[in-house]
């Protein structure tokens, strides 16, 4: 199967998938109990205001009509505006996505920097205390609740030591130093969870590769263990890890809700949580659609990369 055909086949799946996602998110949020007009109408829920809001935002129209109107807008590049603060959904996404992207990139770098070496150690020293410790570190990264870890880090590094800012985000264009310091703790919190997963997968992939014939041959030829692991085994073991990392990166982009709440990072996660609680349908729909698109595209890129590096897939 050549690369072009492979690519076209994947692209052919993307559009129907996105359409299905849009239908699901639209219908699911309309199944949420609670009248959004009441949510938007203030403390006293003036009936005249509630009725005005229903009329203005089309809440009193059939769900299919509302979906059709929204989809028509999206196809013309109009994702609507937040009911709550009138900012356009595209503007909200344009301001929040780079923040979450930056947080996801730093988290992923930390995850890889911790996870891959730990996974190699866990595999090559599997019968030793060091291997056990590596496994325990991975497990704790997966097990420790982000919320708890985040607050503990704030208490230690911000409140007691005063080394790092406890919350907030400064754009890199405003001050790159403050930008970096504001991301250290949240990136570590997010990255530690992903590092645990990467460690486990790297260990599993390495163990499989280290028991293969060509590695046995390399050892038989007298190559040092270091050369065997780093030059021969690691390259093949990293292929599934690349795929996994791409998927994890996509999950990070979908919004690290708890971490963003704790550290007041104005990213996707915070945006969508607030939108759900305020029944801000337009924002929910727009953000979920964009997040789904990014996730699908990332998986597509991972598939292409995997196809390109793995000759067995070319048939």
């Amino acid at each position: 199967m050549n690369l072009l055909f492979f690519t076209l086949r994947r692209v052919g799946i993307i559009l129907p998938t996105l359409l299905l996602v849009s239908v699901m998110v639209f219908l699911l949020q309309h199944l949420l109990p609670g009248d959004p007009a009441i949510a938007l109408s203030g403390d006293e829920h003036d009936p005249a205001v509630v009725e005005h809001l229903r009329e203005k935002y089309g809440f009193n129209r059939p769900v299919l009509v509302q979906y059709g109107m929204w989809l028509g807008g999206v196809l013309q590049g109009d994702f609507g505006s937040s009911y709550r603060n009138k900012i356009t959904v595209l503007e909200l996404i344009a301001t929040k996505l780079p923040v979450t992207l930056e947080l996801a990139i730093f988290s992923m770098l930390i995850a890889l920097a911790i996870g891959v070496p730990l996974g190699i150690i866990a595999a090559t020293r599997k019968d030793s205390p060091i291997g056990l410790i590596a496994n325990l570190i991975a497990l704790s990264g997966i097990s420790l609740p982000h919320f708890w870890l985040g607050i503990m880090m704030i208490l230690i590094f911000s409140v007691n030591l005063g080394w790092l800012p406890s919350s907030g985000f400064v754009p890199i264009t405003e001050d790159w130093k403050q930008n970096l310091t504001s991301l250290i703790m949240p990136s570590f919190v997010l990255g530690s969870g992903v590092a645990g997963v990467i460690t486990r997968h790297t260990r599993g992939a390495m163990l499989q590769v280290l028991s293969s014939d060509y590695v046995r041959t390399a050892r038989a030829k007298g190559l040092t263990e270091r050369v065997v692991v780093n030059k021969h085994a690691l390259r093949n073991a990293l292929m599934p890890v690349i795929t996994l990392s791409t998927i994890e990166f996509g999950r990070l982009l979908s919004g690290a809700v708890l971490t963003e709440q704790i550290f007041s990072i104005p990213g996707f996660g915070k945006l969508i949580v607030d939108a759900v609680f305020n029944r801000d349908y337009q924002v929910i729909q727009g953000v979920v659609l964009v997040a789904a698109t990014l996730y699908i595209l990332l998986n597509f890129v991972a598939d292409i990369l995997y196809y390109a590096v793995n000759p067995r897939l070319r048939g």
Partner: protein
Amino acid sequence: MSLRRVFFGACLSILFGQAAMAQTMRVGINDDPDQLDPALSRAFSARLVLSTFCGKLFDITPDLRVVPQLATGFEWTNDNKTMVIKLRPGLKFDDGEPLDAEAVKYNFDRNINLPGSLRKSELLGVTTVDAVDPVTVHVNLKEPQAPLPSVLADRAGMMISPKAGKALGQNFGSGPSCAGPFKFVSRVAQARIIFEKNPNYFEADKVSIQRVEFTPVIDTTVRLANLQSGQFDLIERVSPTDVEQIKKDSRLKLTVAPDLGFAYLQFNVNNGPRGKLLADPRLREAIDLSIDREALVKVAFQNTFIAGNQFVGPASYYFMKDVPVPKRDVAKARALLKEAGVPNLSFKLIVRPDRDFQVPAQVIQAMLKESGIDMIVDTQENVTGLNNGAKGDFDALFSFWSGRVDPDGNIGHYMLCDGSANSSKYCDPEADKLLVQARQKVEPADRKAFYDQIGRKFMKDRPLISLWYRQLFIAHTAKVQGFVAYPDGLVRLVGVKM
């Protein structure tokens, strides 16, 4: 350039940098405001932020008296059907436009006529507004409306620049221009809202802070951690569970004010099929008598709140000092249930997921059990609960009213037959008559006579039962001087130094 000069320059820039930072007040707020438009905003956080930069015709004192701000005063004429407002001469908006009687008229018209205006219901009694001369406004009413001055001490009295209002229309919140001590600089949704000192403000000489930054942080623990670490200078809505910790921290100061509102259980007495269960007032009395309010605030809030059963708190002039908080009486509660023919009453209480509702709900559940009442806690997210309340799909719901300066704002919408928050569908023509009469009396002493009757009716008929009044806790670092907490919970920065 010599090394000495470079060193000197660096020291100076650090010093001035510190000074500039010291002039920036960083405030942690509970949530991101909705629209920064007095006519369209509904969230408390928006009210808090708006009050920073939007001057009002009137304001309140810590003891809830209405005092002039942009206005110099008011008087009632024409059988109390016209409110004559006098403005300070020479006022300007932060965009340089004059704040005169025509601008005030524009604001009234906007609040009443803008589609979706949430202020319209607050100004229902207003028929016309006349700009008589540059500093005199006549607000003409259908009937006398005593709450109007206190209404104009809130969002309905916040004056926006007509130039900005006309240019931006419903999107005024994207670039607001008002006449307060600060002016809007920028906003990143859910991140920061920045203001700087407004040189046009009439009391600019009393404003020493140059810049204000608001940052929303939902979690109270994280908000406090930010204050302790120095990220914030002041935080609002401190959790009662953090009060002791703040008191012990020498870096921080706590200011307290009695809140305007009250927590309550609202009963469905006549709203749809589920209105039959608690329609009998003896059952509601039994529920009321089963609750030990003192114990409730002790267990749920470490005694930081005040037990009560009236619709206004102790700070209000209209609070009935001679009416004690009722003592728990389980024997009488059981007798009432038996008399009503429901010795084993069971009902569902809609409760929000927040800790400040869940914990007291569980305490109440345990208290009611001793009277033989099975109260089931039905946790529902806020919007869902409101919706079910409006539809009548509830037995009882547990909620909180943030309160208004005027007593009418605390009771009218719950007890009037067509009250906007009357999910109970309680309707008593006598109560309606008293509430309307209380609104039309302008002298506080006259109004108090009516509100005393209304209060007694409220406590006897029990469409709601009030449980406690909050205390508002605002914490700040020790370097913030001159901050005073007000019962409305707003952050006033005129006269505050750092």
